[in-house]
């Protein structure tokens, strides 16, 4: 699962201006809240909007999960990743570090 790995990266680098925003796509509020609590996620967790406010598919065209974007200080998406395999957290951390330094 990707989110607990992101929690680890977030704990290491949040003091440098790094954030994680998780967006739950299906509005499965109870299950999502339970997961967030059990995994002790400390970063920002948001819920997809409903109908006209739906953004995951409607705005960001995300159909596969987990998907992640890495956004730089100017709001540009500099990296996109679909799926999650062992070792992917290292790639994400490297990209984040290079953007924090850049």
């Amino acid at each position, binding site marked *: 699962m990707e989110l607990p790995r992101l929690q680890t990266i977030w704990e290491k680098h949040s003091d440098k201006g*790094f954030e994680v*925003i998780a967006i739950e796509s299906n509005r*499965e509020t109870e299950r999502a809240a339970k997961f967030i609590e059990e995994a002790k996620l400390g970063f*920002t967790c948001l819920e*997809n909007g409903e109908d006209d406010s739906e953004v995951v598919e409607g705005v960001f065209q995300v159909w596969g*999960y987990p*998907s992640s974007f890495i956004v730089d200080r100017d709001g*540009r998406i500099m990296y996109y990743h679909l799926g999650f395999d062992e070792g992917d957290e290292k790639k994400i951390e490297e990209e984040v570090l290079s953007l924090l330094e850049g």
Partner: protein
Amino acid sequence: MRRYEVAFVFVLLVPGLLGCGGQRDQQRSASTAYEQAQQVLDTLDNPQEEVQIFEEFVRAYPDSEEAIDALGAVVYLRSKKLDDLEGAVSIAETARSMASDPKARFEYGIKLHDISVQAGRSADLKNIADELAAVRPLSFVEHLAVVEEAEKGGEWEVMLEHATSMAQFANAKTFRADYPDDDFSDERVEFSVNRRRGWASAYEGAALIHLDRLDEATTVLEEAADLSTLSNYVGVPEFPLNRYWGKAELMQGRPERAAELLAPDALMGRDESALDDFRAAYVATNGSEEGFENYQSAVRQSIATVIDDVTLNNYSGDSLSLASMAGKVYVMAFWNPG
């Protein structure tokens, strides 16, 4: 938890093909046995013992859906945890020889091919695919599995045959028929149909490139050119069309066009093979690799999408707008608990 449970969970979602009553009973007892096996596995933390339980299960219920999942776990454990590729090949061969259900034999065959290639050996992919095709037509996902294996093994004729078949599934009616329980929006269906067409063309083009039929490859890829601009929100194509088209352009001595086509896959999605070709295109244009790092970061900035501002609520009902994140580096992670 063990990672392969996540990795192979979709295999379980593939609908079973078990037709007659006896097989259905066998499937039911396999499901019960697998649940019991999972309970034992939860108490173990030793790959050797885990392998043993999974292998026993595969041998006992070779035609069950769960056995395909179990074989996936064995192959993962043997190849990644126990450094035993030969053992992984051997159990995949055993599973395929014990199974009588055509779908199970096919799935084992795909697994066998995958692990054989990793072990530097070959497996008869054409035979694996033809055997199922003799019973019923392959589905889109099955053709795709054959194509991906063919690419790994460098079996370009097989890749070409199945990539060509994939194109026949790229229409709304067929896509909806493949997912009878889902009520997808027209927009979603259109996206998926285009994706199927993009995949089919990309792989057909790739196979032709490897068969040294470069002109035909270029034609196939150009015919799908309307899809080359059809990328997702972040500008990365959802299928490797431009990646192969870029390769074809590079091989035909047009490195600048190649670099343009390859940039999103190489830089945004960080696809290793696209990045290699992108670098080669730079070298072909500039004579050396000097300055490549600066070049790639400049190109990446120029093609990057600026994220839209949206406002969403957290679980306490507070709202957050992405505009408030300006000045920070952040990961936006899309997920759901399902």
